[in-house]
């Protein structure tokens, strides 16, 4: 279900190109937004429960008379969402009001348009770009404009620190992430996500699926660099220094509350979905089944894709509740002195590998 | 070293500085205040005394008529002996040399004692109130302290005097 398919249908019905375009975008955009909202709701609930179980707690349960948070706290996120929606909308007196109000939307747009290129299954993809990988990496950095905007407009020192840290971090970690994703591109010879996934069909050595991660040692390493850089790009622990709670209160989000803050939250989880989706498509066979040939078609594609994405998101949560936080200079050290050289060597290594074996 | 030995050492270096007082406890020695900085330097640097740790400074108000006192608890990490130095100050104009630059913690302890008793430590580089707000009036731990009636428009409630204890 891509925008192109819809356009073709409308073209078959009649000749109204502008209206057809608007309709096609809206029809595919609304489910996308719902996916984003649903993802955030589920992920927040899961994060609460996962963190609770990791910390030897039970998390939200909704005990007692009435169902104030549902059974097992299932309605907790819904209740939170309602609370955030009806909260007073505060804008600091001394802030730059226009930028302050614009920032959440820019961050939201960055996450939203990134989601458009994620291949949920063979057919479920809003736009099937021929440069899908490049597109996701590119629009992924729109968010940082919003973050810097939010930090500056808040007129708060904590926000400013958070924004500066965030900008430095996201821009730096895009480089190793980009360099690592070049590995699958080199191997498949395409930037189109669907073709990338098609490249990963079949099996290697009879047992393992023919995923790029299992293809050669360099791609194996590239996956980990990509995944760790992706965690850094989404500002999650151990790289959550932009919103480091114990240092910067809430970093660039300090002055935000209510719905604007909820949008940040929504975008954060959408970003997790996007980077995990990219990692899955690029390294883990996308919507392909882990057992080659088994349940490998149709609706199962969505199941496998979301299953893999959910595992990666679970690992991110696991990290968050296990590790302490790095310091800003250590973070940069890891990026510039460790990841980037290794990622570059990887590209070199894959090139040679391909020359010899491929 | 015992207290007597310490006293002798001080008396030898600074004749006449140790005051005789019958009421003192086992580690206490009362000294004259006018040479305190030199005395403190001696107590800290002399290899046989070597009081490298300033454990505590306690301000004391001995009563409406009596003097104010600063009591310094000194301790030596090296020799593991201790001493308590008492210095009395004139009530109207309590002044003594600051030892802030000898023991770093003297900085905060002196500020605290200044805050509570108004004892001025001369030579202290940053003698401000530490626990009370900067614009607080009076010296709260003195026996003749009368609380402010209002502070920035806040009425300070007066505590009723009770008819003694027992």
């Amino acid at each position, binding site marked *: 279900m891509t925008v192109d398919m819809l356009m073709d249908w409308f073209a078959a019905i009649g000749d109204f190109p502008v209206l057809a375009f608007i309709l096609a975008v809206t029809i595919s955009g609304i489910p996308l937004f719902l996916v984003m909202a649903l993802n955030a709701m589920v992920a927040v609930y899961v994060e609460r429960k996962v*963190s609770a179980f*990791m*910390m*030897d*707690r039970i998390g939200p349960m909704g005990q007692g008379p009435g169902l104030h948070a549902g059974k097992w706290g299932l309605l907790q996120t819904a209740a939170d969402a309602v609370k955030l929606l009806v909260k007073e909308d505060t804008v600091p007196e001394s802030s730059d009001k226009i930028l302050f109000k614009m920032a959440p939307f820019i961050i939201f747009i960055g996450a939203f348009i990134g989601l458009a290129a994620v291949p949920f299954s063979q057919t479920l993809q809003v736009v099937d770009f021929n440069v899908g990988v490049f597109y996701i990496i590119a629009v992924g950095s729109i968010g940082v404009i919003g973050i810097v905007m939010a930090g500056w407009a808040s007129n708060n*020192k904590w926000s400013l*620190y958070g924004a500066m840290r965030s900008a430095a971090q996201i821009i730096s970690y895009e480089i190793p992430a980009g360099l690592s994703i070049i590995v699958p591109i080199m191997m498949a010879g395409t930037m189109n996500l669907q073709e990338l996934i098609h490249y990963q069909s079949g099996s290697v050595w009879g047992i393992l699926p023919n995923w790029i991660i299992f293809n050669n040692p360099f791609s194996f390493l590239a996956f980990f660099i990509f995944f760790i850089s992706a965690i850094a790009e989404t500002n999650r*622990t*151990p790289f959550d*220094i932009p919103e*480091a709670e*114990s*240092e910067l*209160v809430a970093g660039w989000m300090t002055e935000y509350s209510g719905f604007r803050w909820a949008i940040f939250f929504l975008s954060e989880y959408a970003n997790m979905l996007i980077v995990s989706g990219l990692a899955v498509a690029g390294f883990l066979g996308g919507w392909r089944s882990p057992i080659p040939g088994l349940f490998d078609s149709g609706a199962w594609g969505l199941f496998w894709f979301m299953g893999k994405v959910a595992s990666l998101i679970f690992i991110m949560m696991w990290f*968050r*509740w*296990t*590790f*302490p*936080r*790095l*310091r*800003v*200079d*250590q973070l940069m050290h890891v990026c510039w002195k460790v990841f980037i050289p290794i990622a570059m060597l990887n590209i070199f290594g894959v090139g040679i590998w391909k020359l010899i074996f491929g | 070293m015992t207290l007597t030995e310490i006293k002798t050492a001080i008396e030898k270096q600074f004749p006449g500085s140790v005051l005789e007082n019958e*009421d003192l*406890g086992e*580690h*206490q020695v009362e000294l004259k205040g006018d040479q305190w900085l030199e005395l403190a330097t001696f107590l800290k640097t002399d290899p046989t005394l070597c009081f*490298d*740790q*300033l*454990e*505590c400074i*306690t*301000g*004391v*108000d001995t009563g409406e008529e009596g003097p104010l006192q600063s*009591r310094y*608890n000194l301790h030596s*990490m090296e020799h*593991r002996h201790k001493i*308590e130095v008492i210095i009395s100050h004139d009530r109207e104009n309590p002044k003594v040399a600051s030892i802030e630059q000898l*023991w*770093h*913690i003297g*900085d*905060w*302890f002196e500020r605290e004692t200044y805050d*509570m008793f108004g004892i001025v430590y001369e030579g202290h580089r940053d003698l401000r*109130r*530490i*626990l*009370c*707000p900067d614009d607080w009036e009076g010296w*709260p*731990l003195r026996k003749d302290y009368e609380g402010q009636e209002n502070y920035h428009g806040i009425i300070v409630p007066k*505590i009723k005097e009770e008819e003694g*204890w*027992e």
Partner: protein
Amino acid sequence: MGVVHGDQMILNIGPQHPSTHGVLRLEVKTDGEIVSEVKPHIGYLHRCFEKHSENVTYEQVIPFTDRCDYLAAMNSNFGYVVAMEELMEIKVPERVDFIRVIMGELNRIASHLLALGVYGLDVGAFTPFLYMLRDRERILDMFEYTCGARLLYNYMWVGGVSHDLPKDFVKICGDFLDYFEPQISEYNELLTYNKIFIERTADVGVLPADVAVSFGVTGPNLRGSGVKWDVRKDEPYSIYDRFDFDVPTGTGEFGTVGDCFDRYWVRMLEVKESVKILRQALKDIPDGDVHQAIPKKIRPPKGSVYRRTESPRGDLGYYIISDGTPVASRVKMRSPAFTALSVLDEISRGWMISDVIAILGSLDIVLGEIDR
């Protein structure tokens, strides 16, 4: 080309901030992330402990001592009653001494657990904090079982304790220790030996021994700098001279002696030592009446006493001056956290903002005790 001048920015950390451990304001001068000066402003929690103490009878001071160091209220009580007994020359029954040591050490474990957990929180690790609180909760349950209070106990009285131990306390406490000892290695696996944690704490905020002594830093912070000084060993009070335990000092395992990691590590080792003391005390505790030596009327003779004890934060000293009436003429509390905070500026210059938080956390301050 002109020279680029960077102005310094003043950043107020606190009074309301997640990592100031209370109401503390740090006025930090920064150049970007680098900190050039830290000025602590204290007094936000000043409750006139010393002035109050001059207006209530001696036994009424004990609840105030609870509220100074609210994380180790037993040890605060302990220091005060030991000083009072020295002033009044009371000999307490042996059972009371044992109970006090048991309570003091349990509270030391509870306090250290909170300090270690919160330190994890300061450097960004959330989970160890809740693991430690989970175990601390069991200690608080034992306190509640003994004296009915969970945080502020008013348990130790001059000459005795308020309640005798419940009959099965020795067994409950023994069970707890059996459960608790293996947990220490769990904390270590989760937090102490985590590479990121070591990176964040080793070599950061080094406090050399001579500076520490000059700043009057005591307790685990001083021992972290490699000075073997523990009031329990070097100036034994109560019955601490009967127990066999070590005084752990910082060795600079992953960095320099006296860094944040050492201060953290010394606390972890002290928890183990406390367990050791507790096992011995639980084994030898005699029977007796805990109220036997409590004086009917507390009216100490004229005189003064300065007595220091080892609280979880360091040398907790009480200076008590009596003029022969039932009301103290002066009670001064020498607070270990007060001296520990004063060293912050010295050791955090040149580090980053994140490090200031890490250093502050490693000093384990309690604002209730600093401001009194």
